[in-house]
């Protein structure tokens, strides 16, 4: 039953898989690893690991402040990573690329600096922040904290039964009182791809700032900050084949200039006296302390790796695999997929329920056969609540996923049903 060719599948998939050492891993019972948890974190190609090791073993030094040869090499590699990331998202200026520790910090950076902002960006009573019901907790909690602390209102777009944003009341949500619209580009639970450019256009009509969580988009779609028309965009290194400990916030210069600093410390200052400090310009203004140097360098190698393959091709691969996965799930009785059924409307993360078996138990049974999926609320409790489920099982593919791995998942689900005597 194994399919090896599907339209859109990456050419030379077997060779590409050899770039990822972990894919050779054998698990308990000598099952080969079938890693279907890439929306949680992606695996790393050798080039990313080697780039970091080479730096650690030959060039390690602090950046900016170190003027010696190692310091110059380290600074150059670190700042080159900023250039690579800027190219990856088509940022008009490299100085708009801020390194954070993850996507969560990037989103909090915007919410926290808005909390302390004065002037036109200040947020207070009567002002409104609009999010959506399909956000990851990292794009909900910062806005709850901001609006609670500043006495502003938090509103949100609801969801349609088929897993899309319900835009029917957009005119009631996006009004002149709306200061910020924060939404995800691709849902990590429903897989839905949102019409970010269209919503940004509407938000800009009322003068709101648009913050986009691209944590699930950046790994699998071409992300262009100019074409999307957004104001801030966040993503996380570990989901784009880069290391943990690094995230990215991109923001438009005019806005970055208006925001107060985020954290205070080394590197983000212009000058310091005991009584008063002045601050550097972006990106340094928002990067207090020693940055994640090795991690930025690893991320630079990662985005170059993805760009070399081509985000268009990766997107096509994800859609092919997702289509195949949705077809496979349809053959297993008792499976209900959450989110759009059409692979073209979605990314490569598919959450589902299996009637009569709790997601933990599904994941456990799959794991006993080497198939790694995620079970739980996937940091999207409100979206689960919206669909009346407490948790779900999520299979998420990536550029290294093969149709045979999807087959292993589907076989595992059949085994699960037998084991638990359901269906």
């Amino acid at each position, binding site marked *: 039953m194994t399919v090896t060719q599907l339209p859109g599948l990456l050419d030379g998939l077997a060779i590409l898989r050899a770039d990822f050492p972990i894919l050779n891993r054998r698990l308990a019972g000598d099952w080969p690893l079938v890693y279907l948890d890439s929306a949680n974190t992606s695996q790393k190609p050798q080039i990313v690991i080697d780039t970091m090791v080479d730096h650690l073993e030959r060039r390690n030094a602090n950046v900016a402040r170190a003027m010696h040869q190692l310091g110059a090499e380290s600074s150059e590699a670190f700042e080159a990573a900023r250039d690579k990331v800027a190219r990856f998202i088509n940022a008009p200026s490299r100085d708009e690329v801020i390194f954070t520790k993850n996507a969560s910090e990037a989103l909090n950076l915007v919410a926290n600096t808005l909390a302390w902002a004065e002037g036109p960006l200040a947020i207070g009573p009567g002002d409104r922040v609009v999010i959506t019901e399909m956000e990851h907790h990292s794009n909900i909690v910062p806005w709850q904290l901001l609006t609670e602390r500043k006495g502003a209102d938090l509103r949100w777009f609801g969801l349609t039964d088929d897993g899309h944003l319900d835009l029917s009341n957009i005119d009631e949500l996006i009004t002149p009182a709306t200061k910020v619209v924060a939404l995800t580009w691709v849902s990590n639970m429903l897989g839905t791809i949102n019409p970010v450019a269209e919503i940004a256009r509407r938000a800009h009509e009322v003068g709101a700032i648009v913050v986009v969580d691209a944590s699930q988009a950046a790994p699998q779609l071409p992300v262009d900050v100019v074409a999307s028309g957004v104001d801030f965009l966040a993503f996380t290194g570990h989901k784009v084949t880069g290391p943990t400990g690094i995230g990215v916030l991109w923001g438009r210069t005019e806005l970055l200039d208006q925001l107060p600093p985020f954290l205070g410390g080394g590197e983000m200052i212009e000058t310091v006296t005991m009584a008063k400090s002045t601050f550097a310009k972006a990106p340094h203004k928002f990067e207090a302390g020693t940055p994640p140097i090795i991690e930025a360098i690893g991320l630079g190698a990662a985005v170059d790796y993805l760009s070399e393959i081509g985000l268009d091709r990766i997107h096509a691969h994800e859609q092919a695999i997702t289509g195949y996965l949705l077809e496979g799930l349809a053959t297993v009785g008792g499976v209900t997929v959450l989110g759009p059924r059409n692979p073209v409307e979605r990314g490569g993360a598919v959450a589902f329920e299996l009637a009569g078996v709790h997601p933990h138990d599904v994941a*456990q049974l799959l794991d*006993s056969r080497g198939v790694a999926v995620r079970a739980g609320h996937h940091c999207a409790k409100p979206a689960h609540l919206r669909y009346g489920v407490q948790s779900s099982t999520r299979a998420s593919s990536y550029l290294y996923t093969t149709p045979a791995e999807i087959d292993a998942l589907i076989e595992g689900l059949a085994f699960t049903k037998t084991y638990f005597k359901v269906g």
Partner: protein
Amino acid sequence: MSTDLDSLYQEIILDHYRSPHHAGLREPFEAQVHHVNPTCGDEITLRVHLSTDAAGDDIVSDVSYDAQGCSISQAAASVMTDLVIGKPVAEAMKAHEAFLELMQGRGSVEPDEEVLEDGVAFAGVAKFPARIKCALLGWMAWKDATVQATVVEHVETEETA
């Protein structure tokens, strides 16, 4: 593989899962708690009703609950109620400790059937670190509620004394 799986999903566990004992929320109760496993979202609402026996010791008269969760967390709650209901609080706490020890022993602790009864079926869970929290959810809720109920009781005793 199935051996490992079977050591996790013992028949006793699956039985409790399919027909949990003492499920549902009942009156009277002195304390009610709501516990969540933040990782996966499993939830339990649990009530404890204590009474005092002739010797003046606290007795667990009833434990009732409403739980959403996986086989392991549901079965553990069911087994727990069997173990604690009708026992003096002090003795029930010992069972709690024994169960905790079993879970944290990484599979190296030999469970005492005298103390844990059906709970010994969970010995295999200790080898699955990700599932330990599932098995403990109900127990932790029970302990929390019992502590609260004991405080309430003693405050009431003082007040009426």
